[in-house]
């Protein structure tokens, strides 16, 4: 049985790791979570990003955050990736499967997946 007491164990285990994460300034993955995004499927996209970033061991340099309506609702779910060199890539019509590829190829591998970007997608 899971119990609240297990959280104390997580606290012990994570004490050193958290200090490292606080210093992290790297890539930011921003998922639009307004009504338009949520109804288009942003919830599983966000949760996939959180899981994949951790699975790939990237959590020290990569943060996943939520934002409101970006204003291009017809392209939702919309995900913006900001890298440490201040470049922004806007991925549109995202799915969990696409999110896995973005983490593996762009976030980890450094190659933008052009076919998912706003420039190569029709509304």
């Amino acid at each position: 049985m899971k119990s609240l007491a297990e959280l104390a164990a997580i606290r012990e285990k994570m004490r050193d790791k958290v200090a490292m994460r606080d210093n992290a300034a790297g890539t930011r993955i921003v998922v639009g979570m307004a009504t338009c995004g949520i109804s288009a499927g942003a919830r599983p996209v966000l949760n996939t990003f959180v899981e994949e970033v951790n699975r790939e061991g990237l959590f020290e340099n990569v943060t996943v955050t939520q934002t409101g309506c970006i204003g291009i609702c017809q392209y939702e779910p919309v995900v913006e990736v900001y890298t440490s060199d201040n470049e922004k890539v806007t991925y549109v019509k995202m799915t969990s499967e696409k999110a896995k590829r973005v983490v593996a190829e762009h976030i980890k591998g450094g190659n933008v997946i052009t076919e998912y970007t706003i420039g190569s997608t029709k509304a």
Partner: protein
Amino acid sequence: MKELSLNILDIVMNSVKAGAKIIAIRITEDNRTLAITIEDNGCGMTAEQLERLSDPFFTTRTTRQVGLGVPFFRLAAEQTGGGINITSVPISEDEVKHGTVVTALFYKDHIDYTPLGDIIATVITLIQGNADINFDFSHTINGYAINLSTAEMRSELGEDIPLNSFEVLEWIKEYLNEQYNGI
């Protein structure tokens, strides 16, 4: 919205934007009905804002001119024969007891009833995006209650570990899954 849990996520986002520090999400269901209450201590709304809330062409956001969250939620409830009710106390009226309460009732045997769907994913998404807010989640099914309080979690976890650390989110997922499987 394909699931009521997505409506809940969307409506709670309004509480987040209202600057709430405490948000309670309560779901109570029996064989025939499902009731949802979302209560926050955010900035609240004036009588005029409240009146226009179900008008899809009223919104406080600046990126576009429509606000569909509350109309969607209302439709989802009314199409089952139920409805929603919203009360609010704006911070301009009461500096201490401000906030908003949204309640909704759904009839589950109606053909247009939207299933609740993945409520665990909604809870995890909310905590992931808002680690500094106290969420008080409860879901009572035919008298059997499932609870998750981030304030209680915080007392075990201490102040240093963010609630949206991956390890903590995983724990929440497993904890809630186990509770639901126990019903």
